[in-house]
């Protein structure tokens, strides 16, 4: 059985230090928007920028986005970006990244599994050729030269703090607990490409999504009512598939997570409470 605890990478830009922490308290929030909001809520006095993926990222089709939660002025933003970043974070064994502090000089973060370096340019960020994902923040967030957040981009906040880019390589892997069930679910969900609320295209596609839609370029903003999908982190266009608790329960179980139906049903309330706490603070 895989533990539901979340692995969070804390980056302290001012100290050029990092640490990995295991968070049992994040387990009820599943991932994505749930864990991002919880981390933001707990650390809001420190103005964190939080990126999160979900427990099934890269393991099932259409679960291809990374959730970002951050503050700017008096507002808190939730936003989603596509491309290959989410899959790299997943296989680096990272559920969330929390960025804190302000660097004294231009900084690029290089992440290879549990090895993290602070360098001063993307050309020095390393990573494994053909397996890495490069993110630039200087002209807005751009992943692999294409994928962006569209509106409400956290890049301006990050660049102001000295962070101009990031590289992620993930060499880990997952062995599903119930392989036969996993393969059946995977195949069934892949066949449901026509349940997505976005047409198929020939544009660059997010990793683990076959659709190649035009909208992968600009990510998506938050929209209430998709909290389960956004915790996994699927794009909103896959909500017909991933807002179904039975489907999600089966997917999680096939991998080896021990979430119950009740915990999944309760997720929306937990997330709503977090939003209220943030808005009232």
């Amino acid at each position, binding site marked *: 059985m895989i533990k539901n605890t979340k692995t969070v990478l804390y980056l302290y830009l001012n100290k050029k230090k990092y640490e990995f922490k295991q968070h049992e308290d994040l387990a009820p929030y599943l991932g994505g928007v749930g864990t991002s909001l919880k981390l933001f809520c707990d650390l809001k006095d420190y103005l964190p920028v939080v990126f999160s993926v979900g427990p099934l990222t890269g393991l099932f089709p259409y679960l291809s986005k990374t959730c970002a939660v951050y503050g700017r002025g008096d507002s808190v933003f939730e936003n989603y970006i596509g491309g290959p970043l989410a899959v790299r974070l997943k296989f680096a064994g990272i559920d969330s990244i929390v960025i804190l502090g302000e660097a004294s000089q231009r900084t690029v973060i290089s992440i290879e599994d549990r090895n993290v370096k602070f360098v001063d340019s993307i050309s020095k960020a390393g990573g494994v050729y053909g397996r890495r994902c490069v993110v630039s923040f200087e002209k807005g967030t751009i992943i692999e030269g294409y994928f962006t957040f569209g509106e409400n981009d956290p890049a301006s906040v990050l660049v102001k703090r000295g962070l101009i880019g990031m590289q992620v390589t993930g060499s880990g892997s997952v062995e599903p607990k119930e392989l036969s069930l996993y393969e059946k679910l995977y195949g069934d969900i892949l066949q449901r490409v026509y349940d997505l609320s976005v047409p198929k295209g020939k544009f*660059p596609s997010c*990793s683990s999504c076959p*659709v190649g839609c035009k909208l992968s370029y600009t990510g998506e903003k938050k929209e209430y009512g998709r909290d389960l999908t956004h915790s996994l982190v699927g794009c909103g266009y896959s909500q017909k598939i991933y807002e179904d608790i039975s489907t999600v329960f089966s997917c999680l179980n096939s991998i080896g997570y021990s979430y119950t139906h009740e915990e999944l049903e309760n997720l929306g309330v937990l997330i709503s409470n977090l939003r209220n706490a943030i808005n009232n603070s």
Partner: protein
Amino acid sequence: MSKSLRVSFPEKCVGCELCVLMAQKLSNFSIGISNSPIKVIKEGERYILEVDEGRVRGADKIVDICPAAVFTLED
């Protein structure tokens, strides 16, 4: 005699990496990307595919999973 995987239409690739994931699952029995015999690399506006043909298993399944018909099988 099993057929081998050929990258016939790389210009059609959308970079979804379903082939990368499937190829690793078939060759290593695990879900990931770093041990996959296939790499998909974005260079400018196109994708380049590198295939370690000696390590590919289940080439027909990789052909099937590609949404853009990039691959074919050849003797």
